[in-house]
């Protein structure tokens, strides 16, 4: 990788805001966060994937991927980051470089032309240009092309230098954050600015979750200046440095952005979550407190408490009918990072039993929170190989699996209910309203009469067909 990228990656591994890093020794830290991969036994996306996840929700720009077809071709339009207007971000745009470009070294030229073509066709406020492995390997200088294009064409071209092979999705999230810090945030001034402006970092508006939060903020007179990056417009992100408070929602994904915005512009940040009733209330309180500290009118605190009280009451009232139906049901939670503890507490609020929760991607802080919630770490699991998970589910160790798409069929083939709580999910689970949705979906899934039917073996598999036929009251006996 280029020297500048190498420096970036090392710097990210030293991120002081990341508690996982702080706990490490000097030597360990040097090695970085990425675990060595095992050929033939690896899974998970690349850094480019991570960068794309983090930036794609900026809805009014073109996201242009410089590389051979597969990087973008196999992955575009695959998430449900929702937009309240522009749809430009949903295009799948790639230079689709050919053997010729590689042999002739014409990749940079092709990239420049590609940038020119998309600007001519769509006139976007900016173009985000992603590097991938092959251009990185043959030495295409994406940053230089972007500089040149920005000068020549007058549209900001943002280089996102996160070729897949430098590391994991998580690293890619952070490199995306670096691209925002280096080239976007602070480059424009907002049209309006109020003492109650906040940014939310690491929220991607999957299935429209942002719209479960925004009304709460609106009610309190808190202005969401920029969501980074869910349903964001370029201008909002570029002027995000004028907000008063940053809230970071997805664990450590954009921690570098939060910390550097504090360094550069003195914007305090806190880490919170909008999953679960308690967490939502805690987050609203924290926003209000920080805003008041930053000079917002003090009555915000009381108004926040009022809203919390009424919304919590309303949520519990909506949840009440489900409590009886769900209490005691056993859940296996298989997801990463911040979602684990926030969902654990949410499920416990319903009287459900969490029989296991994965802590694969969790920080020590996350683990501590889970351990506090579950009374010890007995049920924290690391990686469960699919075969093992299948066996557990077949045995009936859990009534339902909550996980991402990768393990969907482990549950379904074991004939156990499954609910998607990862990026590809179709339901919005944020805020008080989202909790009600989650519980409703859990109930729908668990109470579906289909489960019993599919678990029954075919009658001839279990022996006596005559008994089976005689038992069937609807059939007229054959005499």
């Amino acid at each position, binding site marked *: 990788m280029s020297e500048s990228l190498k420096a970036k990656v090392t710097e990210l591994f030293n991120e002081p805001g990341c508690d996982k890093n702080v706990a490490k020794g000097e030597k360990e830290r040097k090695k970085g966060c990425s675990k060595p991969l095992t050929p033939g036994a690896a*899974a998970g996306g690349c850094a480019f994937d991570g960068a794309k996840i983090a930036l794609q929700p900026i809805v009014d720009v073109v996201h242009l991927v410089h590389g*051979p*077809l597969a990087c*973008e071709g196999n992955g575009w339009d695959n998430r449900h980051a929702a937009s309240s207007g522009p749809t430009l971000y949903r295009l799948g745009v790639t230079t689709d470089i050919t053997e010729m470009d590689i042999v002739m070294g014409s990749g940079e030229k092709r990239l420049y032309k590609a940038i020119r073509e998309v600007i001519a066709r769509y006139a976007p406020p900016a173009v985000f240009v992603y590097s991938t492995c092959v251009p990185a390997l*043959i030495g295409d200088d994406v940053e230089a092309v972007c500089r040149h294009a920005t000068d020549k064409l007058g549209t900001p071209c943002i280089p996102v230098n996160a070729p897949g092979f430098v590391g994991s999705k998580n690293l890619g999230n952070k490199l995306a954050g670096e691209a925002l810090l280096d080239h976007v945030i602070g480059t424009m001034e907002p049209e309006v600015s109020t003492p109650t402006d906040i940014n939310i970092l690491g929220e991607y508006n999957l299935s429209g979750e942002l719209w479960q939060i925004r009304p709460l903020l609106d009610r309190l007179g808190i202005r969401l200046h920029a969501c980074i990056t869910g349903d964001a417009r370029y201008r909002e992100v570029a002027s995000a440095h004028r907000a008063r408070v940053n809230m970071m929602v997805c664990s450590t994904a954009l921690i570098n952005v939060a910390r550097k915005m504090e360094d550069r512009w003195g914007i305090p940040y806190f880490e919170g979550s909008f999953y679960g009733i308690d967490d939502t209330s805690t987050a609203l309180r924290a926003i209000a407190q920080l805003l008041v500290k930053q000079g917002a009118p003090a009555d915000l605190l009381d108004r926040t408490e009022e809203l919390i009280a009424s919304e919590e009451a309303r949520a519990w009232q909506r949840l009440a009918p489900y409590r009886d139906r769900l209490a005691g049901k056993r859940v296996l939670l298989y997801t990463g990072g911040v979602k684990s503890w926030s969902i654990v507490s949410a499920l416990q609020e319903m009287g459900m039993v969490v029989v296991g929760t994965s802590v694969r991607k969790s920080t020590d802080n996350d683990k501590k929170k889970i351990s506090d919630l579950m009374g010890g770490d007995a049920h924290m699991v690391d990686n469960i190989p699919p*075969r093992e998970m299948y066996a557990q589910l077949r045995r009936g160790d859990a009534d339902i699996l909550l996980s991402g798409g*990768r393990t969907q069929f482990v549950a379904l083939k074991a004939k156990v209910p499954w609910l998607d709580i990862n990026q590809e999910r179709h339901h919005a689970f944020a805020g008080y309203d989202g909790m009600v949705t989650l519980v409703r979906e859990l109930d729908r899934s668990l109470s579906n009469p289909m489960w019993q039917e599919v678990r029954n073996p075919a009658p001839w598999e279990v022996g006596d067909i005559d008994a089976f036929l005689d038992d069937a009251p609807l059939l007229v006996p054959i005499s």
Partner: protein
Amino acid sequence: MATIIQRRRAVSINPLKSSAPLGAALAYLGIDGSIPLLHGSQGCTSFALVLLVRHFKETIPLQTTAMEEVATILGGSGNMEEALLNLTRRVKPRFIGIASTALVETRGEDYAGDLKLIMDRQPELAHTRVVFASTPDYAGALEDGWARAVSAVISSIVLPWSPAVTPFRQVNILPGVHQTPADIEALKDMVESFGLYPVVLPDLSGSLDGHVADAWIPTTMGGARLEEIEQMARATHTIAIGEHMRAPAELLGSLTGVPLTVFPTLTGLAPCDRLVALLSRLSGNAVPGRYRRERSQLVDAMLDGHFHFGGRKIAIGADPDLLCALSHFFAGMGAEIVAAVASTGNSPSLDAIPAETVIIGDLTDLEDAAREHGAEVLVTHSHGRQGAHRLDIPLMRVGFPIFDRLGTAHMLSVGYRGTRDLIFRVANLFMGQMHDHVPADFADVLPAPIVEESSHVSPPATH
């Protein structure tokens, strides 16, 4: 003959094609006890895996050699070796099919040679059959990757003809990448009903037909069996479907001496007649009554359906052979192919497409052409949904990937029955769009009267 237009643009907006390694992985998935292994970075595999799962709604065994930056620069044979050993130890597959990606091909090493060395020095791998296909993403698309993988399997697994081979009433079938499990099942059924034994390579109808097994198996479950692939020389004939399968079929022919027929498509009355006649000749059996009946049902469907096809304007975007098959189907029923876009240009099928021009391009080219010519339906894979929405015309989903519909594996479009059902699908789509007539529909019944303003022509003088 269609004029072929190669779009000269630096950017592809909304790609039509899927990458070659994905096609290769798909082919390897049609072999029993198999794990496809992409030689490249883990990210490429992750994207491919997600897409395959979204299409088939099944677990897909797919692994990666997990090349990171240093390995890429130093050379990838160590990772390949490690991956093979790890897979063999952990999941004991019977077969591993390797497909290279752009990343490792950019370095241009001799991976096939490396593989041979690895197999020679690792006794642990003795019970696993391993093949390698070179499928850089920057050359070709799904059809090419699929065909190359099939060729790789043929050249390393099939036993060449020898005097010891006992001929058998066997027919080899080499389906193209767009035959669904249901299509393959129907073909097998057909071959069997003539008293012949079908050996299908690759056979997705066993592995990706969507079934629930009684245990968790980390490899494919079902598909072409290695023992049968070895014995392909026993067949009396090989049937390949689509131009992209010509090369693998010819390779098989040269190894085994088995004669072959390449069918450009098996959708439509005429191609089905040819297939049935061929099977009848090969078997020496009369055409079973069942197919006479199915043929008659298809003829009836064509009679009932043609009202809805005649003059309809169709825009199709697909890989070359699928594009060829579909455009002949539509044109054969009286529709007009107003936009034909192919994912790649390296196929002889394109010349035969019944359209004025064939564009080698992406979904944006398809959308633009469909708009320009007033297409009434967009025929392409699921990624066409954004374009169809903008055009405000229905999308008929074909090819790969189809991720926003269920039952893709069971969609049948070959044989008399498949063609019949396809006619109904399309006709129903159009019938769903039908609107009640209003006076505005007849606005041009009479030409508008010409109002002369500036010059007044006096009527001819009468005497």
